[in-house]
């Protein structure tokens, strides 16, 4: 009985050259709950994939309950009692919530009486607070319900081991409390749980073991309390950290520091800014304005009445936890999705529902979340793409400027766009946004999954752009950095601005900590 439930030994997952999981080992004792934390893009979900069987490791072995399951398919692992949830929920859209659970149930007990199976599923739905929607289609569940459905569906497997991937993300405090209660109660049904979480409170209150991952490597491990106490964990995990001690981080080798002293440099930067900012207060209409914007996907309402103004020369930051609706908001601004209600104006002109490329031509550029570098294009081609219908000389000039801003890119100009390190790709994404010589740039989660040191570099660049008078809209998870850079700040929660004001005011506002409880400590 004291043999561990799950042992992973030297797991490695490579995608081509990129190593997503680098020699990670872990052991989960029976009755234990283990937490796995680390910055986005550190390889947490990959690890879950490896354990759940969705991915096959390039190296290493996994032993579950004394049996080597490395070679087993996901379904066989599931049948042995490994239940897994997806970070981005994947319910069976065209089946009712109950059927979603029954699928698991029937695959497990094909010949169980229907009534019994149904009773079992309903019990689980009851526990997960989904009883009232049992007969609605998965398609009609809003995000948070879908996340619960993920857990419920995994539970329908009667799992011995539960792998929970960011089930807490985007929940408000009360919901987090509920979730913690649920997880605590699950402990009695399963022999072990592994939780990937951003909401540290969940980790703290549920897990006795904690594993910190960074760049796919095991960074720290131990009893939750100790690990949480350690400074370098804070350094890695809480974005607020500065790049000290970062000399150990790989990004550093590829990168040479930006030299701020060169005057050419400042010139280059300013040359990339489409329209200088005018001093606030003058009677120009806001460059970008949202009036009571609602938006969502199908049945799911994500934005519920957003009012936003960005004046020329202003830097506005939008903060909020995962699932608060930040991404949807930037989709609306880029024109990728149409608001279901409300208006969007550029220079006072209504542009609601205009297709993305037209908005782009109005001088709105976006540095999209996840970089979205075009793999088939070289670095330079990626840069040239937004500079449409521009005279060759001008194009070349802009290229030069971007290259002075990010010398790395020049070195890699003819490499495939995605062949570079994450940080360099982010540089490329920023440079690409600037190539259109935009008047306003939306920077969406540019620090995601980057080492603090690299974040520093990128933010240095943003500060320069701000000096040059570029109007910016910044969507960030990393509160501290955003607050430093921004003039005005809005904090989102459930598709609304829960908190708005100047950076200074927000910084001192106690409600910020409340909204962010868990991440800031």
């Amino acid at each position: 009985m004291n043999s561990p439930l799950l042992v992973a030994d030297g797991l490695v997952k490579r995608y081509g050259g990129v190593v997503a999981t680098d020699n990670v080992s872990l052991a989960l004792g029976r009755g234990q709950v283990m937490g796995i934390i680390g910055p986005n893009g550190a390889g947490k979900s990959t690890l879950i994939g490896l354990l759940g069987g969705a991915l096959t490791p390039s190296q290493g072995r996994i032993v579950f309950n004394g049996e080597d399951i490395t070679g087993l398919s996901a379904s066989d692992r599931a049948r042995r009692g490994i239940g897994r949830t997806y970070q981005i929920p994947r319910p069976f859209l065209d089946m009712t919530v109950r059927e979603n659970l029954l699928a698991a149930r029937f695959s497990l007990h094909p010949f169980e009486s229907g009534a019994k199976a149904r009773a079992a599923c309903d019990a689980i739905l009851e526990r997960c607070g989904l009883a009232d929607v049992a007969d609605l289609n998965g398609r009609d569940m809003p995000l948070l319900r879908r996340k619960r459905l993920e857990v419920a569906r995994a539970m329908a497997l009667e799992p011995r081991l539960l792998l929970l991937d960011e089930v807490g993300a985007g929940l408000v405090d009360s919901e987090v409390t509920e979730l913690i209660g649920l997880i605590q109660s699950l402990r009695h049904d399963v022999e072990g749980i592994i939780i990937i979480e951003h909401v540290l409170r969940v980790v703290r209150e549920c897990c006795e073991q904690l594993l910190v991952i960074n760049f796919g490597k095991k960074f720290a491990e131990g009893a939750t309390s100790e690990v949480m106490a350690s400074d370098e964990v804070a350094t890695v995990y809480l974005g607020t950290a500065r790049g000290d001690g970062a000399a150990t981080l790989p990004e550093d080798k590829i990168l040479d520091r930006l030299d701020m002293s060169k005057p050419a440099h400042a010139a280059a930067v300013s040359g990339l800014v489409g329209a200088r900012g005018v001093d606030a207060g003058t009677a120009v209409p806001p460059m970008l304005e949202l009036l009571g914007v609602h938006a969502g996907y199908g049945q799911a309402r994500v934005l519920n009445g957003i009012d936003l103004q960005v004046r020329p020369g202003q830097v506005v930051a939008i903060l909020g936890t995962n699932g608060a609706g930040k991404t949807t908001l930037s989709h609306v601004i880029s024109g990728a999705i149409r608001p279901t209600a409300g208006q969007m104006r550029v220079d006072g002109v209504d542009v609601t529902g205009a297709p993305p490329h037209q908005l782009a031509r109005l001088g709105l550029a976006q540095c999209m979340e996840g970089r979205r570098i075009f793999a088939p294009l070289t670095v330079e081609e990626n840069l040239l793409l937004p500079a449409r219908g521009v005279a060759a000389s001008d194009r070349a000039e802009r290229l030069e400027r971007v290259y002075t801003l990010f010398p790395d890119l020049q070195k890699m100009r003819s490499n495939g766009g995605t062949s570079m390190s994450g940080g360099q790709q982010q540089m490329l994404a920023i440079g690409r946004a600037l190539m259109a010589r935009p008047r306003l740039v939306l920077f969406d989660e540019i620090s995601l999954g980057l080492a603090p040191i690299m974040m520093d570099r990128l933010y240095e660049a943003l500060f320069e752009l701000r000096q040059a008078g570029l109007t910016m809209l910044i969507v960030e998870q990393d509160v501290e950095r955003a607050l430093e850079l921004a003039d005005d700040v809005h904090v989102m929660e459930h598709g609304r601005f829960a908190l708005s004001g100047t950076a200074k005011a927000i910084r001192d506002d106690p409600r910020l900590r409340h909204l962010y409880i868990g991440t800031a400590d």
Partner: protein
Amino acid sequence: MLTSQLSHPSHPEPLPSPLELANMSRFCAYLFLPACLLALAVIAPAMSDYALEIGFRLLLLITLAEAWNLLAGYGGLVSLGTASFVGIGAYALTGLVNQADVPFFLAIPAAGLAAALLALTVSRAVFRLRGLYFTVGTLALAEALRMFMVNYSGFGGASGLFLSVDPPGLLELFWTALAIFAVTSLAMTVATSSRFSILLRAVRDDEDAAAQIGVRPFRIKLIAFLVASFLMGMAGALQGLKVGAVEPYGMFGIQWTVNVLSIVIIGGQGLRAGPIVGALFVVLLSELLADYPALHLAITGVILIVVIRFAPKGLVGLFQRRPRAAGGVQ
């Protein structure tokens, strides 16, 4: 085969959940359909030859369409290989009757089995293909098989084979078609309103997620594929029996695939009644436009396009209350 849905009463929720529909189709299948079939079987002798002829064609096409619907509509396996199974069925029947003079009523299911066997042998290969590649793969497979039958002289080559005995009369054929249709409906009811359908739809909606909760996608898909092929094989056998001669261009011809596909799309993919309505529509249309062949096909094409564009759930979809807006939070 009882499932949770059986004991479940229709609830106040305004839009019809698949559950209600399942219950309805279950009702139709359990009470209404058999009644219809029985009635047809009884009045058949009184029917004019033309009615029998049309009825036969309808039943044959419905059987094929139901089978295809099981694959594409419920299993998400859009196959363009229908012709191969029809052809195998027809050839198997002819072979069995000519070589071993097996009686028809045995030869037909045997032909179905032959088709299922083909499905079994190719399943490993085709299920490695997903989505579009599966579709194109099955098409290529069907064409390859046809060309093989054309070139390989073993089964009469391009000239084909003739049934050595006299085929049964129209009435008998009609009755046989009814019987096969009954089998089909039964199979479809079991497959679409039982726990199997839940697993099948789970695989259709998200194969990986299904695997993650213990469903074995390959197995589920294989079962659906085998059942569908068996039904198609029997339909093919019946056609071979009727024509009394088989040759590759007709029996392995793409037009089988085409007809079945348009029937289901026009009728309503993934809907229990889709194939029936579609078949009625297509057959009646072809009767009306019989004298303008090329025009008739062109019109079918236009209808196909219009339906795809404006009625994604087919004619039956229009009958029902509109399906809700698609798209999920991602």
